[in-house]
């Protein structure tokens, strides 16, 4: 009996071993074949990955690094940089440092790098550009004399005798800087190297971040108010009519953004169609034409129109999936149409509202071309300042810092959205 059991046990172990062996082989085979599939799949997405890496991740990382990069001054003014390394910042530097500065300026002038130095330093302390170019010109004309370099430089411009100038030079020597982030938040270093608020007439960015936020919220809200009824109509109309309406929604979507923006200019400007009509109807007198273009109003109107489909489409796809019998059930149980709408229908459209609002808001917060064209003075958003620093002032560090702050705000919003509503509930149609 015992023997029998033992034999069965052995047999069992054997078959189990065999099965396990077979299983392993099968698994290996499976792994091999899936590996091939996976490799094929990877090969298929490889172009996209490469594209994203080269066109998106790399520039983004480069941009983020630029926002703290202190620039080339330390290498371009090596003597001054070495002398200033252990300068105490409380008294003016010694004669040897002045001599080093004079030498560095002359070399930079010869090698045509003075412009680079001046550009970077001017971001630190407004006006240094003219100080440097002027000093370079005067130093070139100067004859040798017994005066010390300090006397000569201060004679050229008294700013060389000020601590603020020297501490600005010292600040651009380390490899990283916080200047650009400080400027983005309307802060700056004072002569002692402490962080202070900029005077109100020079402070622009904090207010503009708030304004960008407000405009985006306004656009999202008006898109919701205008888009909700349209999406509802689309979801309840018979197919033929719904299709026609859908084309009307999509038609502007297929029209160039520039065309749509400029047609708003034609409509809303002081001598535009709307004002002409109001004057013709006698509602407005000729002298009191409304200012609807080149200000914040124009920006909100044009952006709402352009972003409207991004609200309607997710709303529509959610509404389409709501069973009409819910509403019938609610009314048959005694709810008024209003109560039924508020308590039964509206909660079910929540994923659509969330998706639409998130899409519109995030697109709006980084909007550039429309405010640039119709924003005038008061309708400019933060992207316009980023573009300005990229193209005009060439302060790429500041542009990068502003862009990074905008990116962080968007990420925080996304995180909040995920916490409150849940990203898995998003429905984009």
């Amino acid at each position: 009996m015992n023997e029998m059991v033992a034999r069965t046990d052995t047999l069992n172990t054997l078959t189990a071993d065999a099965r396990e062996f077979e299983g392993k082989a099968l698994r290996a085979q499976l792994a091999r074949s899936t590996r091939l599939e996976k490799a094929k799949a990877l090969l298929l997405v490889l172009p996209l990955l490469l594209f994203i890496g080269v066109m998106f991740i790399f520039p983004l990382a480069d941009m983020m690094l630029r926002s703290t990069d202190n620039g080339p001054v330390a290498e371009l003014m090596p003597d001054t940089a070495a002398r200033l390394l252990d300068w105490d910042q409380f008294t003016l530097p010694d004669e040897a440092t002045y001599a080093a500065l004079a030498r560095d300026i002359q070399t930079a002038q010869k090698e045509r790098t003075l412009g680079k130095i001046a550009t970077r330093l001017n971001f630190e302390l407004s006006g240094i550009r003219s100080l440097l170019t002027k000093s370079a010109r005067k130093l070139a004309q100067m004859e040798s004399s017994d005066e010390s370099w300090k006397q000569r430089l201060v004679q050229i411009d008294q700013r060389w005798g000020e601590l603020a100038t020297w501490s600005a030079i010292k600040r651009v020597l380390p490899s990283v800087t916080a200047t650009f982030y400080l400027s983005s938040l309307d802060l700056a270093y004072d002569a002692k190297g402490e962080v202070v608020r900029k005077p109100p007439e020079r402070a622009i960015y904090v207010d503009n971040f708030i304004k960008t936020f407000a405009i985006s919220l306004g656009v999202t809200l008006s898109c919701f108010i205008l888009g909700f009824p349209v999406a509802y109509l689309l979801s309840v109309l018979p197919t033929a009519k719904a299709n026609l309406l859908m084309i009307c929604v999509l038609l502007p979507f297929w029209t160039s953004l520039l065309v749509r923006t400029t047609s708003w200019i034609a409509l809303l400007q002081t001598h535009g169609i709307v004002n002409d009509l109001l004057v013709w109807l006698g509602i407005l007198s000729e002298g009191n034409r409304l200012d609807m273009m080149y200000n914040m109003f124009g920006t909100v109107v044009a952006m709402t129109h352009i972003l409207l489909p991004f609200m309607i489409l997710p709303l529509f796809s959610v509404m389409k999936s709501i069973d009409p019998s819910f509403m019938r059930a609610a009314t048959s149980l005694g709810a008024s149409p209003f109560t039924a709408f508020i308590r039964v229908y509206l909660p079910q459209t929540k994923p659509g509202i969330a998706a639409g609002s998130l899409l519109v808001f995030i697109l709006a917060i980084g909007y550039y071309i429309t405010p640039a064209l119709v924003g005038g003075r008061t309708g400019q958003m933060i992207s316009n300042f980023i573009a300005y620093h990229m193209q005009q002032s060439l302060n790429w560090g500041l542009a990068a810092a502003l862009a990074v702050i905008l990116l962080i705000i968007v990420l925080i919003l996304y995180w909040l959205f995920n916490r409150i509503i849940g990203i898995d509930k998003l429905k984009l149609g």
Partner: protein
Amino acid sequence: MRKLIRFTSVMALGLSCTISIASAAERITVVSFGGAYTNAQKKGSHEPFMEKTGVQILSEDYNGGLGKLRAQVESGSVTWDVVDLETSDVIRACDEGLIDTIDVNDLEPGTDGSAAADDFMPTAVKKCGIGAIVWSTVFAYDKTKLATAPHSIADFFDTNKYPGKRGMKRSPKVNLEMALMADGVAATDVYKVLSTPEGQTRAFNKLAQIKDQLVWWKSGAQAPQLLADGEVVMTTAYNGRIYNAVKNESKSFVIVWDGQVMDIDYWAIPAGAPNKARAQEFLVFATAPEQLARQSKFISYGPPRKTAAAMVDESMKKHIPTAPVNLTNALAADAEFWADYEDELNERFTAWLAN
């Protein structure tokens, strides 16, 4: 997979064909401000150059500033061969090593045989750029829409006498100078005053008087458009754009030359231009007297060299900025001033605009 490989190799073959075609015909990229101005340059210089040398010219438009140029030079992928730059940009780009130096002795002599260095206006020859035109920012109005004609720069700032909106370029350059001249500063003193903090505040205060009435334009073509739409009653504009709107679009715009701010545009060659030898050849060709004179037939910008100015058509002479009748109260833009002060005044202007 095999299909993919075949597809890739076909693509690669196609690509190499395109490259070989491109290298067969030589080509340079010339960048300028577009519109009526570039058209005049095409007729004045591009077309004759292509005919003479067989080199293709690809004309590209931009809106000024050094942003794109710096991006190209710093990333090491320069696609521009020749670029049209404003004065302060020529100086800045030269200081930063973004454009190459140019030897004035390489240029064509004047038609009377005088050396190029003597034939050019002294301000038109810079270390890294050679003058192509003298242009001007003036203000203009539509005579069918204004009952009384303004005739001084002070009138532009007087919204009591001439109610209505004004158009100005979204930039402190020229606007601050005009504000000071309107405030009674003589043209010769403008830059002296503007170098002082008090003078800058004075200019900004003058601008602030009409701040609510200002509509800002960015590209040269927008200014005549604002005027044509009736969006503004007066606007500052480049004189050539207004001339073009009057001549080719039969608008009834009138230029007020009082308080004009003259400036020069330069041809320059980016550091690391892909086809430097041809670029150099084009620059010499385009700044020769014949080409400069021919160009002035198509737009009312004057040539910055004497023997070319002498060849300008009689009918065009009174429309160019340097005509004696237009010079009674004129200011020549001070490029050194703007190269030095541009950053700080830009910053102040941007903040002033936003607040």
